[in-house]
């Protein structure tokens, strides 16, 4: 295995010379950013759909057309912002069970610990 001595170092230098590392890191960052942007957009849009839907239905029921629609449009927008906020800061609560507090990490899956020790 002496041919591998210094191989990683030479590969790193060669990649640096060719500017490959920067390219790969940019490519690696792009889908992540796009995915996060897409998720945030979906959260806002779906909260707006629910808010507008509730407002429109209440208006049709009570016959107060634009007003509840407008109110729930704003509420839907606020809920959308809240959803996006929760996307990055999952909520924790003082009264939560102790194991849940340790588990509450990032919302998109980097939550570790907790029940892991329970595997057979």
């Amino acid at each position: 295995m002496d041919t591998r001595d210094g191989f990683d170092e030479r590969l790193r230098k060669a990649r640096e010379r060719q500017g490959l590392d920067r390219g790969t890191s940019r490519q690696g960052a792009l889908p992540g950013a796009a995915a996060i942007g897409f998720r945030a957009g979906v959260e806002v849009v779906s909260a707006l759909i629910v808010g507008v839907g509730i407002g429109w239905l209440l208006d049709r029921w009570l016959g107060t057309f634009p007003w509840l629609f407008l109110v729930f449009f704003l509420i839907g927008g606020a809920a959308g912002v809240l959803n996006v906020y929760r996307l990055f800061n999952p909520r924790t609560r003082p009264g939560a069970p102790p194991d849940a507090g340790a588990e509450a990490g990032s919302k998109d899956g980097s939550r570790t610990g907790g029940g892991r020790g329970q595997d057979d």
Partner: protein
Amino acid sequence: MAAEGKTIDALSQFELAPALGPIGASVNFTQSNLFMLIAAGLILALMHYGMRPAAVVPGRLQALAETFHEFARNLVVEQVGPEGRRFFPFVFTLFMFILFGNMLGLLPFAFTFTSHIAVTFTLAMIVFVLITVVAVSLHGKKFLGYFFPEGAPIWLAPIIIPVEIVSYLSRPVSLSIRLFANMVAGHVMLKVFATFVVLLGGLGAVGPFIAVLPLAVNVALVGFEVLVAFLQAYVFAILTCIYLHDAVHLH
């Protein structure tokens, strides 16, 4: 179908048509239902024939079945906690059904049933009803406290409570839109570039050479769509687990 009349017809692939001849037509059995049955059958076949040898050193099919099983179990246990293991069958079924639906849709002549909002919203509503029932049955009246965080000033309640309720109700909507939009966007892109190949290919002598470009894009897109198909099934399952965690621990 792609290049009829020299136009790009990217959406007709999502149209429902009766399957199984006159019998299917009379009961509105569409190709979407057919592919749901195929997906369910394939999952059952994989689990049955994969696990039948039950060898200590697994063969190929058994390794595949065990990988899926372990993947979903780790997902549930890590996200919900050890007490969430009773939800494993639910999450596993959901994950496999969506994964097979997405993957089957990538095969030629196949129909992607997860590209219909009716299907994804139904799946999301099943999740939504389950998390609500679990939260209410485990916590009873304390579930209502979910909509008003402790320690918030009481005069903010008229603002916070509707916002929290709308935020909670938007969960199934965002869950279903995410899956549906990803599937539709991917298949529309595939169809558009495939149409480019056909249209450019008929462009005289240079046509076939230019048509190689959209063909190359399509090859890359198919690979990307395989990734998206898996990723969206994973995202659906992990969000289900996160919601279940919220329902079980209520915070």
